[in-house]
């Protein structure tokens, strides 16, 4: 009797779990499917060669947003990548101590700060003194978001570098800094670069920090000190607009952004998986 009840509950539980999984996966598939289908229908060559058309005219593209995003990401990479790498090296190589504990804690806190708060900080830090919104402000805000991600991923990768390799370097009379840069960093380079790419894909879609820093723009601009368009900002502004022409631009730019981010993710995850396989 008891066995029978157990069997029934077991079957029931299995059904519930499968059903719940299905309900979970369904909307996620729907989101991606919707963006891909809608975006693919609105794709055109104009999209990446032209700037947005004025309201009421059909056509136009998001060239300014693509270029703007690239500029902002470039600025944040110049700031975020070297600092992140050095911070990661610090956490991976320096021996445990109070200061290291504090720094690690700060990295974790920094990573947990909501991105909109970072946007406000970028506004206070750059926009207020400069008296105008600018690409630089956007880049700085994103670099603050990027920094902890790179520090953490760099540390994780560099910890996997076998200690024998370092010892071999030291035994050959290499100074410590050369061991760090040319043995430790060199060995973990694949993983470190993957981490950087992942962090780039993460901040490429960030919108909230750009609202009060880069602001967005209808025009093509290469100037660092001026408001600049960005792909995620365009998606936001076009999707809340009432114009069907802008909606189609927004579908298409979501498609571009999504494909970009998914591609980076699939590639880097494959690389990381292969590295773990090799090391472990």
């Amino acid at each position: 009797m008891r066995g029978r009840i157990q069997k029934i509950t077991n079957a029931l539980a299995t059904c519930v779990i499968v059903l719940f999984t299905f309900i979970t996966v369904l909307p996620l598939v729907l989101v991606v499917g919707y963006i891909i289908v809608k975006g693919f229908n609105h794709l055109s060559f104009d999209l990446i060669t032209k700037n947005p058309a004025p309201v009421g005219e059909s056509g136009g593209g998001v060239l300014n947003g693509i270029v703007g995003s690239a500029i902002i990401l470039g600025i944040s990479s110049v700031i975020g990548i070297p600092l992140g790498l050095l911070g990661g090296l610090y956490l991976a190589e320096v021996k445990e101590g109070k200061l290291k504990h504090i720094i690690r804690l700060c990295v974790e806190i920094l990573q947990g700060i909501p991105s909109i708060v970072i946007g406000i900080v970028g506004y206070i830090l750059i926009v207020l003194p400069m008296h105008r919104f600018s690409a630089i402000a956007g880049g700085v805000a994103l670099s603050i978001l990027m920094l902890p991600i790179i520090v953490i991923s760099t540390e994780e990768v560099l910890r996997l570098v076998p200690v024998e390799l370092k010892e071999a370097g030291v035994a050959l009379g290499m100074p410590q800094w050369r061991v760090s840069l040319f043995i430790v960093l060199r060995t973990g380079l694949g993983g470190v670069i993957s981490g950087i790419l992942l962090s780039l894909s993460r901040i490429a879609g960030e919108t909230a920090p750009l609202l009060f820093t880069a602001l967005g723009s209808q025009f093509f601009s290469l100037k660092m000190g001026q408001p600049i368009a960005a792909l995620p900002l365009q998606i936001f502004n076009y999707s809340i607009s009432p114009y069907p022409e802008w909606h189609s631009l927004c579908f298409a730019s979501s498609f571009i952004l999504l494909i970009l981010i998914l591609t980076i993710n699939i590639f880097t995850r494959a690389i990381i998986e292969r590295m773990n396989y090799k090391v472990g």
Partner: protein
Amino acid sequence: MNKNSEKQDRGFFSGDNIFSFVRLCSGILIVVILGMIFFLLVFHSMPSIRKFGLKFIWNHNWDPVNKDFGAFPFIIGTLITSFAAILISLPFAISTSLFIKEYAPPVLGKIISHMVDLLAAIPSVIYGMWGIFVLVPFVRNIELFLYNHFSFIPIFNAPPFGVGLLSAIVILIIMTLPYSISISRDVMSQVPLELKEGAYALGSTKWTMVRKIIIPYCKNGIIGGTTLGLGRALGETMAVTMVIGNSTNIPKTLFDPANTIASIIANEFNEATGTLYVSSLIELALLLFLISLAINTIGRLIVHKTRIKKS
């Protein structure tokens, strides 16, 4: 060799010293950045802190015209949306990770697992766009149905707009699921095989094994992970801003338009004029920072404690 050691012996300015100094500086810089963020937020919300004091937290009014600002409606909006989203998504997250780890054939489990990881990478603004074009009309129909048939229940008794609390909760559920799934999946893969095999050897069914072995073993990890997910949901901005309907009143029903702390900042910061208005918004950002800091710290402590216990 001699040359090399000469190079190293250049005293204070040797490569090693410079390198470790630079490395140390970049480490300390992180602490400085965090301190600076906190200082800037406090400094620029001073006008509002001085004017309203602690009353800011429970003041119901948000009135830019009369320069009377209170955070209460937005704190409520933030807490309702994120707690509801996390609590509802929890059973789904646990089921999905159980399915991935225990029930599915390995290939299918791996596919779903990878898919979930990719979905976590989709930016918030894209979820928001989907929310505007697909979710809000869908939710409006559901609200209409609930309103027509169940309006005697207070939380369903409001005109259905589509945009509002319910839509925000649903989009938050969808967005936090990949994150919660990946955490509980990672916790579940730490369950020792011997325990599971032991349970099976004693003749238990799969469900008994899950209930008696996996769930107790993973409980703390899942709670910690859920708390971290809550920290994420609290600060989620774009998608929520796009579907929550932007109202500064306290929501009374599930269908009411509302605002979270993050969404009111996103909606009003660029249009805010006057020192007090701007600094009230910055104080909201400071509040959000502190709330998510508290939640994240609790979550990390729980996760950390379980890790220590297990190793």
